């Protein structure tokens, strides 16, 4: 017993008291900022392996971005990554960062369904479905509940059965082979329910976008309640996104 107590004492307080205000250190790459500096625009677009950068005005789609950092290395005067990890949103278009506009990523509070806040504001149980995820987002979703990030303190947890869940968190580009099981799991969740896409692969397909092995047709008829960018999404991004959606 004494030995156990010692272990606890030596490890000290591990949880992050305020998950909303943590200072992460560079080179962690969070929300990018695009300056108004003129650069060779075509070269900038061409450098991105995932087609996340587009023109008029120059904009940067975090839903397509793997945060590999190549654009910032090639054009440091144009693109700078901040350490702002609060980059989730309930609106897909809010993940797009534009030239010269250095704002925080917005949540469209109006668009959140009333029952989501009312029902899940104090307790949210989620079912995770990996549909071609590479096990990094999955690991970070697990980490969101560990002793450091301790998402459970907000009543947010992952459950074993979809029957006990209030929503689904999808990781991976949604493979053809998982499209069926994902649909079954979604249908098994009682209403009201939320649908969350976690990580670049889930949001846009990522590097697998044009693979013939994926089937994203389920997204045509399910409304997505939350987009959590990242490759993988950082646990702080996950926790903050879920909090913003539900309270």
């Amino acid at each position, binding site marked *: 017993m004494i*030995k*156990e107590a*010692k*272990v*606890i004492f*030596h*490890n000290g307080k591990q949880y992050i008291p305020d998950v909303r205000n943590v200072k*992460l250190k*560079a*080179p*962690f*790459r969070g929300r990018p900022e695009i300056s108004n500096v003129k650069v060779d625009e075509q070269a900038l677009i061409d450098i991105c*392996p*995932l087609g996340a950068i587009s023109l008029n005005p120059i904009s940067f789609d975090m839903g397509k971005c*793997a*945060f*590999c*950092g*190549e654009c910032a*290395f090639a054009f440091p005067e144009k693109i700078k*990554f901040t350490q702002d990890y609060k980059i989730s949103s309930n609106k897909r278009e809010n993940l797009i960062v534009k030239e010269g506009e250095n704002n925080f990523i917005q949540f469209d509070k109006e668009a959140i369904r009333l029952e989501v806040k009312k029902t899940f504001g104090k307790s949210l149980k989620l079912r*995770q*479905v*990996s*549909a*071609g*995820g*590479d*096990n*990094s987002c*999955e*690991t*970070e*979703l*697990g*980490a969101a509940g*560990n*002793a*450091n990030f301790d998402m459970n303190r907000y009543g947010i947890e*992952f459950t*074993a059965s979809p029957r006990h869940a209030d929503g689904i968190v999808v990781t*991976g580009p949604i*493979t*053809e*082979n*998982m499209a*069926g*099981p994902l649909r079954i*799991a979604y249908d098994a969740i009682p209403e009201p329910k939320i649908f969350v896409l976690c990580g670049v*692969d889930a949001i846009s397909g*990522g*590097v*697998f976008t*044009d*693979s*013939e*092995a*994926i089937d994203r047709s389920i997204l045509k008829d399910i409304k997505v309640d939350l987009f959590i960018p990242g*490759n*993988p999404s950082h646990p702080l991004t996950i926790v903050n996104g879920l909090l913003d959606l539900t309270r």
Partner: protein
Amino acid sequence: MNKLDSILRIKNNQSVELQKIETLTYADFYSIVLELLKKEENHCVTYFAYRRKDDLQFIIAIADDKNHDIAILSHILKARKKQELNSLTQSIFALHIFEREIYENFGVNFINHPWQKPVRFPHNRADKKLQINDYPFYSIKSEELHEVGVGPIHAGIIEPGHFRFICNGENVLHLEIQLGWQHRGVEQLFLNKKHNLQRNLLAENIAGDTVIGHTTAFAQTMETLANKQISEQLHLERALALELERIAVHTGDIGALCVDAAYHLGANVFGILRTAIINFTQLWCGNRFGKSLVRMGGTHFPFTEDLKIELLQMLAKYEKQFEEMADLTYRLPSVQNRFDFVGTVTKKQAQLVGTVGLSARMSNIVKDIRVSHPNIAYLNFPYQTITLKKGDVFARFLLKKKEIRKSIAWIRNLMEHFQFDNKNTQKPDYQLNLKPNNLAISLVEAWRGEVCHCAITDENGDLSHYKVKDPSMHNWKALELSLRNVEISDFPINNKSYNLSYCGNDL
């Protein structure tokens, strides 16, 4: 036997012109492969087929741990011939997975293959009519036995796979694991993507828990094909990242096993310790999993003397806490009781199914690419492999602890004897020109075991085939064997003690 002497042999991270690879008749191929694989020091690191015009060219790579080289053999199956071959698996069971893959991809029938079943239901499989739900499970007709099906979606936050148990009461007689749910078309995408940065990103996403293992194999393969010289420093940086990846995952696995033994103190503390390691990786490259760190030809994130100070401080703290926690955990009777003599795979079984990496070492098989086929990093800073004898859950649990210690010692030694020179860094180079008509192979000892990447170029120096092998391909069978005559409730601890990759298998 002069046939054996004249076999083409290359080193790890070497390339060879395609025309130097002699195509044998299948009869010769068959007998030479059998001859080679009879010896304990040899094992198959990859065996695949690819289309050349209309015909199928087969390539097998057999690593020789004694001579530290890799034998490359080939044969061709003409399109006009009947698409069937005598199965090698009937003599060398470890080849089962490779023949199954070829059967699934190209419809080649392996005569007398004992277990010719689909591997992953890839989008470009030969028989598109066969759906993933049609998998032909083994079953036993009996009134006393019942079957339990689990998955593809599991109870935790874990990748999908289907497990079919045949049970006698609580006792498992047989487990069959059906994978493929995660198939994303990785190998085809390596060919479709024309920009090397995209390919690099793809390698990074093969298995998110083996980022360094797979990207290092990718980078080495491409650098080999381009004759690109890499500094010792860069090799060492990659090896350092590889060892950190090993420490992080092993620590997490020890914690996960504590969860299943209902030992929550251990579960939490090992979880915290894993965080320390991956947060260091984030401090180094901005990503907790090392994504963006390993790039072809160089890196954007060279290791520095400043990082060295941080790393040594972190490790000192980690080690103190780890040893304190491990001291308690590994002596705890309830933990020992839970893991001891459960899920045993004997050395003979492990050899038979061809396990690699940790799954081999826990059954007293010395298999470690860092020792048998080292690159410059492990030549200059050697690593000594540890093996255990028992082959049960406890052996896997214990081996993870021992390997963590070994990796820390390796890192310490490196930090002590190598000065990282900030002026001597190499930037990534995505414009590498690949040699035409060549084959290159790279083996890397990732935390699960050997990762193998093999690439072939066409006459224009573009990739014409890219083959990825995650160690899980070899090791899933070991998990199935572990479940023989085990209570079904012991499945989770067995599963976690291996922690095999679904996406690495499904690609």
